[in-house]
């Protein structure tokens, strides 16, 4: 990759050229998005030919602003968060050229949804304990096992999948990472209903699912290292995005506060302002983090943003339910559905409150994130461990 010489002015020119050739008013959405990808304006920090221009990451906002002003359609990131935030950076870093060419474009345009087949009934926080087996068979691997809490498995065309390929070595050493075709025979997706009433996530059974070796990311036995890339990016994807002041959950509560003066109390007022100031401080911290990372990939600091995001979302949504008084006793709809997209700030206050509970569990629990900060950022010693040098098959479970 060569040094980029692209600046904001150059990007504006390229956006103008894209708009001139593909008028958003008359171009079909997928066609516009494909053209945008091919123009290198999908994610400008990606390589040329893969939707980017090798440009500094922070210049993305220039592109987004120009396109939004022109009324161009977007790729609705709420539908394809796992693809954008987790699968893409992992494919980019570990995929062969063929895989990158094959997967990144439809991933970004949203024509192909991705899901993440990591967690299992016996392996959540301790992901490295996972048991789903992949066994080599000629040019293929044959996979058997059960995954759980798989968001958007019901809409996904592809999955990132971590498996056990060697049970005889300690758990971190015997894993291998694949891209799995969700339409393969043997992939069985069943909804799991959540506390919100709907089923955003699923359990996924894998019975003799065949995956070509060409769909492996990273070396055999290197799955843990590849998964780390996914997880680091996941934590930035949850909570690390640029946001306007008073955006997200805070905006919802602030709007209710302004619209409903009769609900206000002194106690809620001070809590609201404390959370306002904290949210703004963390929003600035996110800006600062992005300025630091202008180029390069997220480090463990990203864990901090996700931790803060979960705490603030929960505190703010809880406050809103209290603020609503009588109305806080109502809920919009418990009907079991399988939603197409995840919107943390969608629907009504009760839904937001319940959905926010997942923010401190999904993508690494808040407890695990504190461990990561303490050990990897601050260098504190780990708890004594009993599982490190034991073959996976001999671990107590």
């Amino acid at each position, binding site marked *: 990759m060569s040094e980029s010489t692209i600046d904001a002015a150059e990007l504006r020119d390229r956006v103008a050229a894209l708009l001139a050739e593909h008028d958003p008013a008359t171009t079909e959405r997928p066609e516009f998005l494909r053209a945008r990808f091919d123009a290198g304006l999908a994610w400008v920090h990606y390589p040329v030919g893969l939707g980017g221009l090798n440009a500094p990451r922070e210049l993305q906002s220039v592109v987004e602003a120009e396109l939004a002003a022109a009324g161009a359609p977007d790729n609705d990131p709420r539908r394809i968060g796992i693809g954008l935030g987790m699968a893409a950076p992992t494919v980019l870093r570990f995929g062969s050229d063929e895989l990158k060419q094959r997967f990144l474009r439809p991933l970004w345009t949203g024509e192909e949804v991705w899901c993440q087949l990591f967690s299992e009934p016996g392996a959540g926080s301790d992901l490295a304990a996972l048991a789903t087996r992949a066994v080599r068979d000629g040019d293929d691997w044959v996979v058997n096992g059960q995954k759980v809490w798989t968001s958007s498995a019901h809409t996904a065309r592809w999955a990132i999948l971590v498996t056990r390929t060697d049970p005889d070595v300690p758990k971190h050493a015997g894993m291998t990472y694949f891209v799995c075709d969700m339409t393969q025979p043997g992939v069985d997706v069943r909804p799991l209903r959540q506390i919100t009433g709907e089923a955003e996530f699923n359990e996924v059974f894998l019975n003799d699912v065949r995956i070509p070796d060409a769909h492996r990311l990273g070396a055999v036995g290197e799955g843990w290292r590849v998964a780390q890339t996914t997880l680091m990016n996941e934590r930035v994807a949850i909570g690390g995005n640029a946001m306007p002041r008073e955006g997200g959950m805070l905006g919802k509560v602030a709007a209710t506060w302004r619209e409903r*003066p009769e609900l206000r109390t002194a106690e809620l007022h001070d809590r609201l302002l*404390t959370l306002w100031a904290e949210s703004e401080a963390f929003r600035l911290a996110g800006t600062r983090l992005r300025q630091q990372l202008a180029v390069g990939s997220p480090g463990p600091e990203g864990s901090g943003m996700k931790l803060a995001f979960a705490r603030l979302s929960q505190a703010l949504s809880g406050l809103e339910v209290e603020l609503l008084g009588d109305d806080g006793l109502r809920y919009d709809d418990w009907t079991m559905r399988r939603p197409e997209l995840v919107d943390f700030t969608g629907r009504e206050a009760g839904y937001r409150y319940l959905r926010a509970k997942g923010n401190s569990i999904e993508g690494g629990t808040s*407890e695990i994130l504190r461990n990561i900060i303490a050990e990897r950022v601050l260098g504190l*010693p780990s708890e*004594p461990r009993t599982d490190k040098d034991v073959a996976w098959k001999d671990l107590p479970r």
Partner: protein
Amino acid sequence: MSTPDLLYSDVETDLRASVRDLLTDRCEPTALLARVESAEPYDTKLWRTLAAELGLAGLPVPEELGGQGASVRETALVLEELGRSVAPVPFLGSAVLATAALLGADTGHEPVAALLRRLASGEASGALAVPLSTAPGSAFPSAVAADGGGRLSGTVRSVADGGAAEVFVVPATGPDGPGLYAVEASAATVAEPVSLDLTRRIADVTFAGAQATLLAGANGAPAALEHALLTGAGLLASEQLGVAQWCLETTVAHVRDRYQFGRPVGSFQALKHRIADVWLELVAARAAARYAADALATGSDDAGVAVAVAQSYCATVAVHAAEECVQLHGGIGMTWEHPAHLYLKRAKASQLALGTPGKHRATLATLVDLPG
């Protein structure tokens, strides 16, 4: 709102390194502890080095007025380092509050320019004669009265760094309304009560018909005072960040070294999670403090919000970091011998300084249209 630069520039990083080197050398904890109970609680030699030799007292003062022509972003950085070492120098009183009051007045007015030169060069140290607890947005004080001949009378309690000041910048109300005056310390009576904060002391200053020089009249004095209070509150956030940073680093070092139950106490998750929370608060405090400094430096329209966020947040973070530092040191954290208490005292006193967090949140409520 364009995106402010929340990072440290190369120049700022160099400045930090030189200030830190000096303070590591000249402000180490044992000597500091001895000094706080001595007859000379302020380190005048260190202050002279910082102010006169390194030119740090006049960072935001234009060069033609004897300063460095930099900005309060650099002042904020120096405050981080001074907080990190709880250095006993009158930087907040003189280089921040008194200087900002003068910069907020008409610097073309000769008495203002002359006093700025004295303060910026480190020739004299000043103090702003208001209680340290005064918040931005407060009513113009009425504790000191000016008579028709420009003589001041009245007492101002709890003036930050008042005991080290050679000259006071005094808001006073006279027959023509509010005014800002300069009074030499020799013309005032300065009493030093026992301060909670051992490394930044307060003084009760009494003027009894003291001869004063008018710096700003009714037209300029309220704005000059407000400029000082807002600048002070915003920059104090950086000092609080420095205090919290020392507390975090010292706590981490201690829990890694201290063994109980056959392992470092820092390997116990109950402690790790508490320390991780302090770290996280510091991440946000740094961003908020940088933003406030930048907003003040550029005269941004958003400075009011930036300061209210930074001061309400950073004050709380510093107190939390200092309290955790004491607790996680166990018995040694409770001793006079260990410097943790100097930081706790600074953190707690600073929480009350230039508006409590609650006061800043009330300001914020108005600024962001979330009325109570």
